[in-house]
């Protein structure tokens, strides 16, 4: 009875999302550019390679496949001071310039080791702007990755509806709980 009611409630809630009323989107006001991408296509591609270098595909998807570069542009555009857009654009130009200078190739066409070298140089740059750019992008890459659907479902196993609180459980037992149980 209870469960059926709960499920019914959920169905209604999801139904509610489809017709999300206008006020719920009120904060996407016209005075804010809310397009997902403010970067030119080429800079967007460089950013995608940068986030992929920070968190690359291994046996699990990397930041690029999880759309972290799109997330970063969304947040920088909507949620940060305009100076952050500037910092991102200039930083990506610096990445590209360094790739050209060091390898005479665009950043996107470097191999993984070369990309990592370029980012390492930028991260240790004596130029405060370049360093600031890297720390901005790295922090947001981690955030975008950790809040992605793939990671929250498959790696950190976030539970939207835990349905319980146990105050004192052994640390060891928790870590060895099979995934299937953690996900229920």
């Amino acid at each position, binding site marked *: 009875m209870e469960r059926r009611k709960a499920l019914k*409630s959920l169905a*209604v809630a999801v139904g509610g*999302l489809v017709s999300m009323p206008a006020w719920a989107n*009120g*904060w996407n006001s016209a005075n804010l550019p809310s397009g997902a991408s403010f970067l030119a296509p080429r800079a967007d591609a460089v950013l995608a390679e940068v986030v992929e*270098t*920070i968190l690359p595909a291994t046996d699990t998807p990397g930041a690029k496949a999880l759309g972290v570069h799109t997330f970063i542009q969304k947040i920088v555009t909507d*949620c940060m001071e305009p100076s952050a857009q500037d910092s991102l654009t200039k930083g990506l130009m610096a990445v590209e310039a360094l790739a050209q200078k060091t390898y005479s190739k665009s950043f996107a066409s470097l191999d993984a080791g070369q990309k990592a070298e370029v980012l390492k140089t930028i*991260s240790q740059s004596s130029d405060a702007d370049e360093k600031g750019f890297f720390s901005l992008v790295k922090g947001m890459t981690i955030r975008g990755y950790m809040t992605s*659907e793939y990671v929250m479902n498959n790696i950190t196993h976030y539970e939207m509806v835990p349905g319980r609180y146990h105050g004192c459980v052994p640390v060891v037992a928790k870590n060895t709980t099979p995934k299937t149980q953690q996900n229920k």
Partner: protein
Amino acid sequence: MANFAIDAVKATTYDAIVIGSGISGGWAAKELTEKGLRTLVLERGRDVKHVVDYPTTMLNTWEMEHRGQLPLGIRKENPIVGKCYAFHEGSAHFFVKDAEHPYVQEKPFDWIRGYQVGGKSLLWARQTQRWSDFDFQGPARDGFAVDWPIRYADIAPWYSHVEKFAGITGNKDGLATLPDGEFLPPHEWNCVEKYFSQQMAAKYKDRPVIMGRAAHITKPQPIHLQQGRAQCQHRTICERGCPFGGYFSSNASTLPWAAKTGKLTLRPHSVVHSIIYDEKKGKATGVRVIDATTKEMIEFYARIIFVNAAALNTNLVLLNSTSNRFPNGLGNDSGVLGKYAAFHNYRAGISGEYDGYLESTTEGRRPNSPYIPRFRNVHKQETDFLRGYAAGFSANRISRSNQEGFGADLKTNLANPTLGGWSVGSHMMGETIPKESNYVALDKTLKDPFGIPQLKVSIVYDDNDDKMVKDYQEQMMEMFTAAGFKNLRVRDDKRNPGLDIHEMGGARMGKDPKTSILNKWNQMHHVKNVFVTDGASMTSTSTQNPSLTYMALTARAVDYAVKEMKKMNL
């Protein structure tokens, strides 16, 4: 034509009008309709239907446009509400934006409001502690404010009445400072919280640490299932609205219950301008409303009126209800209306770490935390400040990952966080003393977008509050040290009054019509068919969360009002 006019009046006439649909207005609606009264509930904001109007409630983090973060424009436009801990991408639509309803801060005051059906009952922190006689006797003991016209015994049965329906989790602790209620099973402690509670019990005779009492259904009873509510699912994203009805809100509980009686008319978008006073009849006859959509002024009539607009807006409505008989606001012969406003002092906190119980952790989430009832000045005046404070307490462990470098190693590290040690923390909730100099009034020139005078707020901390902050810090430092907690840091964030969202008073209850607005039934001394049962009615603020007391006072006042109507006294 004449008939048409009579019909028009009939169509806008009810047995009772309730101004406001928040936590106390919802209760007024439930109790009045259950007793058979045709009741009109006026809500200034839009309708919010349970579940269907909770647009973010089922969203995962990645499904929110900014994954929970608010856009810069919203933050810049809302320096006041932006300070509220619960204001984020998933909940911002339930808060009043700063520009929507301007007010005058004669002294800095962060006024946090929810203008929609359900009001702030969608957003509250759900702590539901009963007030004890130590709370009700505070003013009589030290002479600040006036004596409450009621004691615990007057309200105790009404606490039981509202607790059973709302669903309150708690443990029967047998404390004089915090009476037990009708509890559903309590939430669990974690190891460090339990340890702290035991340490304090061993060290102090009078500082029990208990599990908080909160409006969450931990084990649904038939009365909850009849409301269509289910067991709390521990999501701890309550401020988005709960599709399970796991916590109490007007939307999930009292309003749908009132609607089922067939006696309820709920009218959103109805901004109350004033209460109509008929000098010949010597009573209030109705309410003037500005339709927020059409900007048209409409009148509604009823035999009794409940004012539940939330503390400060209730003051605004009463102050703006002027007539020849009451030139300074409805029922305000005493001149105290708007004065003796008070709040809760949440400025101080403490945080630290504990290196025991490292073999234990928690699982799942808990929408509640332990609570330290007031232990200062309980039986006698023992400090250099008046009254006392309660405190929240909690312990938790946070996982942290190594975020050095980048590449595959960073990715591995992010997937394998290590569990940190225990963090412990507490915050204070101090009673502030109602004073004549802390007041709200109508601004003489500025108007809101509906042409209603803006509310001028002049509420500040005083020396008593500063002393209380200092004492809380000292006592908690001593208690945390005694428990072996380390790296202790105390804080005083000097937040503005208002951010506690526990503003109270202005239309206080009292025995003497010369010094109070309401009698012991929350009934206006001078306008017998008007009742005020929200935070505005509070004579003092106590050291407990106030919402449960608003609910109980409301149910009690409705019971009295309906009996008086039957006796033809109203």
